[in-house]
């Protein structure tokens, strides 16, 4: 099919800086310069998630940018590919033990390609995007059968409660256990909530 081939010939990117030190960002922008010129492959830096096919994220996720990363991801029309640029976006890197860092981008949204490096070199970034094109073609074929990437829940936690992603704020109550704060590696539940105010039987007994 014509469209299947064309998606790999016209991948438009959006670039988001999570908690990056800007090293990887500069390397991403270097790809657009005459030296590397990714427009050769039809790649355009759109700056608009609704026009983008490939989501380039540099830096790790922290408490504050979780909703932003999810929002950008959800606003991108299928088929879409996420490329984590640099070791911070891959796993948290040297910042992984910081109090505010959750970890790599895959803690929040599904990641398709990892480009490690500190900072990732432009050649490696281009290579990662080209790897992403293969995934993009597969996803295009899947989309034709009705299979699309999931919408990631907008739920996230504030210091004093949980926002459920639908406009409701659930204030934190006494006895709530904040799992994420104690366990940064915890994964989402079925609703995408990282933090569950669920009480165990033991806690109830304690109360």
């Amino acid at each position, binding site marked *: 099919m014509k*469209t299947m081939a064309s998606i790999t*010939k016209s991948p438009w990117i959006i670039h988001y800086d999570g908690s990056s030190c800007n090293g990887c960002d500069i390397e991403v922008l270097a790809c657009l310069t005459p030296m590397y010129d990714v427009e050769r492959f039809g790649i355009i830096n759109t700056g608009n998630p*609704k026009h983008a096919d490939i989501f380039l994220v540099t830096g790790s996720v922290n408490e504050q940018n979780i909703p932003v990363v999810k929002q950008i991801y959800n606003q991108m029309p299928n*088929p879409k590919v996420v490329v984590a640029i640099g070791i911070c976006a891959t796993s948290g890197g040297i910042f992984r033990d910081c109090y505010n860092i959750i970890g790599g981008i895959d803690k929040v949204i599904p990641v398709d390609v990892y480009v490690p490096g500190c900072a990732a070199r432009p050649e490696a970034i281009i290579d990662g995007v080209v790897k992403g094109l293969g995934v993009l073609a597969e996803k295009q074929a899947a*989309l034709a059968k009705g299979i699309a990437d999931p919408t990631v829940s907008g739920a996230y936690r504030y210091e004093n409660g949980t926002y459920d992603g639908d406009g409701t704020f659930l204030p934190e109550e006494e006895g709530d256990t904040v799992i994420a704060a104690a366990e940064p590696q915890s994964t989402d539940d079925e609703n995408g909530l990282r933090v569950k105010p669920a009480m165990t039987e033991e806690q109830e007994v304690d109360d």
Partner: protein
Amino acid sequence: MDTVLFTFYGYELHVSYLVGAVLYVVLAPFAGGLIAGIDRKVTARMQGRVGPPILQPFYDVAKLFGKEKITVNNAQDFYVMCTLIFMVISGVFFFSGSNLLMMIFTLTAASIFLVLAGYSSNSPYAQIGAERELLQMMAYEPMVLLSAVGFYMACGSFNVGDIVMSDAFSFKYLIGMFIGYLFIITIKLRKSPFDLSMSHHAHQELVKGLTTEFSGRTLGILEISHWYENVFLLGFIFLFFARGSLPYTILGVAVVIVCYFVEILIDNGYARMKWQFTIKSAWIVTLIFGGGNLFVLYYLQPILAR
């Protein structure tokens, strides 16, 4: 070959006009896409880059049509579709040799539908983009209308067919109009000092302005309507030189190519200006070159002809 099919209020529909209209509807997207591809290639070369393939705009649109359909409301898609339809209609008016004023009004209708599409999304970026699009229209419309009046003064008809076949060499009478039109076509082609409402390039103070909320198929349709638009905007330049004979046709095509190259050069040489500058400069140019030319045609030509 060139028989008249029917006459309607002084407008004669020749077979060749009908052929022109059909050719426009069928071929303009290909020509427009190719022009866009060459534009991007030349731009890249000017910046010392290799640039995308010439056919890149076609790949882009083919991709956009394969994307998931996301829209903030159905009205938006309807408005964008109307933009395409009215853009095609204005081109058909032009290439079927019919009324120049009619063409300008349908062109305005197409732009208005685009503005409505921007407003309907309720996105602040798209709304500011739509406001800027309106300001751009205010900037270029007077000059477009004046040049139509100029053609009437020079050739005695608003009909494109009559202008093309007219004995008068329009450019000789309309040099001021030509300069004015070249100035405002920079706005119409969305080239850099005046690409306020939506940007093709890396400056993103409005994300993507008017087109922020368009995605997938809708954006593809808008791109195709731009291709249609660009073809007849360049055709309008050609009209200044058309005289129904081969040497003048060659001259016209050559001027169109040179003008487009200059537009690309300007695009790459300038940063984006503020909307205030756009309106002021466009109106001043319209007044001096458009108005001045009209003055000369109206007052001086009868004296000189005497």
